[in-house]
């Protein structure tokens, strides 16, 4: 549904988005990750046609966003960053207006408004002015606006920002449910959301895509993927590390914790260990009293940091 090709955006001398390409099909939920200022919002603004691209193209449902902006925008529902809404209107008036501008009239409009009010739990504030709403309600009002015409494509810029944990959960459920029939792209910097909602994730840093894959694949990139945590009793940490270094698959061993006679160490695998490390470590440790032996999954936050941190650090230096 969405096809982004070699997209770039230059502000003055700064390349905010640099040669970004990806595509999203119906039934996919794409998580768009990246540190602040990485170019997430700029990319989304170009997908929705708010900003014209400096180079490259975006097509939505086969319509180029620059050549056929009206047709393309009809297919898109957009939740901008910070969820803006007309503060002088009531929630009902605002939704009514957005439905009308989306071409919904009469009975269809009434139904559309009722549907999103129910979906986003706005019933209790329906006749309140947007100005007086709490942040969570305001956010949901803008979210309701984005799905009012039941679009095929949803572009959501930080849809859970500023919500309390319950509301976050609700919104994620909603995104996941809608993701079965629509093409959704949403940006976030909360990594647990990627696991909870996305079928695929892209990490962007300083305008460039640095990783693209399913959450599972991304986790594999982590040093943690396939690492083994071992806790034993009554052995010195130096003995444990020396012994583990003799295991061929082990690349590195770190001592996590040592107290009251317990030692916790973590062994990281060499490339190609393919999950066989736990077995090997277990064998090496068989003569000790093992309290815990656990194979780790990769960790997204660690992948995220390892991919985006070095650059940020370099910039600071």
């Amino acid at each position: 549904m969405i096809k982004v090709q070699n997209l770039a955006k230059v502000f003055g001398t700064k390349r905010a988005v640099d040669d970004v390409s990806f595509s999203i099909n119906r039934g996919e939920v794409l998580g768009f990750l990246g540190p602040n200022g990485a170019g997430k919002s700029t990319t989304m603004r170009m997908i929705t046609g708010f900003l014209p691209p400096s180079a490259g193209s975006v097509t939505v449902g086969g319509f180029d966003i620059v050549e056929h902006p009206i047709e393309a925008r009809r297919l898109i529902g957009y939740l901008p960053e910070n969820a803006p809404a007309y503060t002088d209107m009531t929630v009902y008036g605002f939704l009514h207006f957005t439905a009308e501008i989306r071409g919904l009239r009469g009975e269809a409009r009434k139904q559309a408004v009722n549907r999103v009010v129910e979906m986003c739990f706005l019933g209790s504030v329906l006749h309140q002015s947007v100005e007086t709403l709490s942040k969570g309600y305001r956010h949901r009002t803008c979210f309701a606006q984005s799905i009012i015409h039941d679009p095929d494509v949803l572009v959501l810029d930080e849809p859970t920002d500023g919500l309390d944990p319950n509301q976050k959960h609700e919104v994620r459920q909603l995104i996941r449910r809608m993701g079965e029939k629509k093409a959704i792209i949403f940006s976030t910097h909360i990594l647990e959301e990627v696991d909870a909602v996305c079928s695929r994730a892209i990490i962007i840093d300083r305008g460039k895509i640095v990783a693209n894959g399913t959450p599972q694949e991304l986790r594999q990139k982590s040093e943690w993927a396939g690492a083994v945590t071992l806790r034993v009793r009554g052995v010195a940490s130096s003995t444990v590390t020396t012994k583990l270094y003799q295991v061929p698959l082990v690349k590195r061993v770190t001592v996590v914790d040592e107290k009251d006679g317990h030692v916790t160490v973590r062994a990281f695998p060499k490339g190609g260990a393919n999950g066989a490390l736990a077995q090997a470590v277990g064998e090496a440790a068989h003569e000790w009293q093992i309290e815990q032996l656990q194979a780790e999954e990769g960790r997204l936050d660690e992948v995220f940091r390892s991919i985006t941190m070095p650059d940020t650090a370099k910039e600071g230096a």
Partner: protein
Amino acid sequence: MNACRNVWTITKRELGAYFTSPLAYVFIVIFLLLSGFFTFFVGGFFERQEASLVRPFFDWHPWFYLFLVPAVGMRLWAEERRVGTIELLLTMPITAWQAIVGKFLASWLFLALALVLTFPVVITVNYLGHPDNGVILTAYVGSWLMAGAYLAISCITSALTRSQVVSFIISLVVCLFLILAGFPPVINVLEQVAPRLTDLVTSFSVITHFEGFQKGVLDSRDVLFFLSVIGFSLFTTSVILRTHRAG
């Protein structure tokens, strides 16, 4: 017809926005008080002993509008930019033109309402004498066109900034130029300094073009002047909005 519907949707929303805030009521009350005060006290409506509204009433309009129209127009785009709703508006399936025209139309209709509410003056003058109501009507049309020209200029300045105050001040200054270019004291000075330029400069003035309407003459050149100021200003607004987004 879709385009008209989109424009009308925007216009309705904007008109609603005027009347949900106190701005509309404050504006109308001040406009009516000012026009009443100037007509009857400063303009000397009774002392003139003529059944005419031209001098005591319409003569003041270019000056009222100088302050009041930028106050109506200042929020049009500045507020959208400040709150961020411009991002919603311009990603809806409408063209930027439809949004610009819709917003302009809403404010213009609002000004028309304020103007219509001055009808007691017309009743008064008809009660006291036998004025030429045709002249009064053309003068009203001219006044409305002039307000439209001021308003379109306020659209430009509003699109330039996030701050309503800055927008207000800039458009006030620009409109002041349009008035002064035809203001007799300025023309007198100009005639002595650069007599050749006088005609050119005065032809840019709203006062010069409003004059005809006040005499009851509906000159196509005057109508065209105001319409082209409106058209040009709205076009400039669209260019500003586009370049602002282009970064």
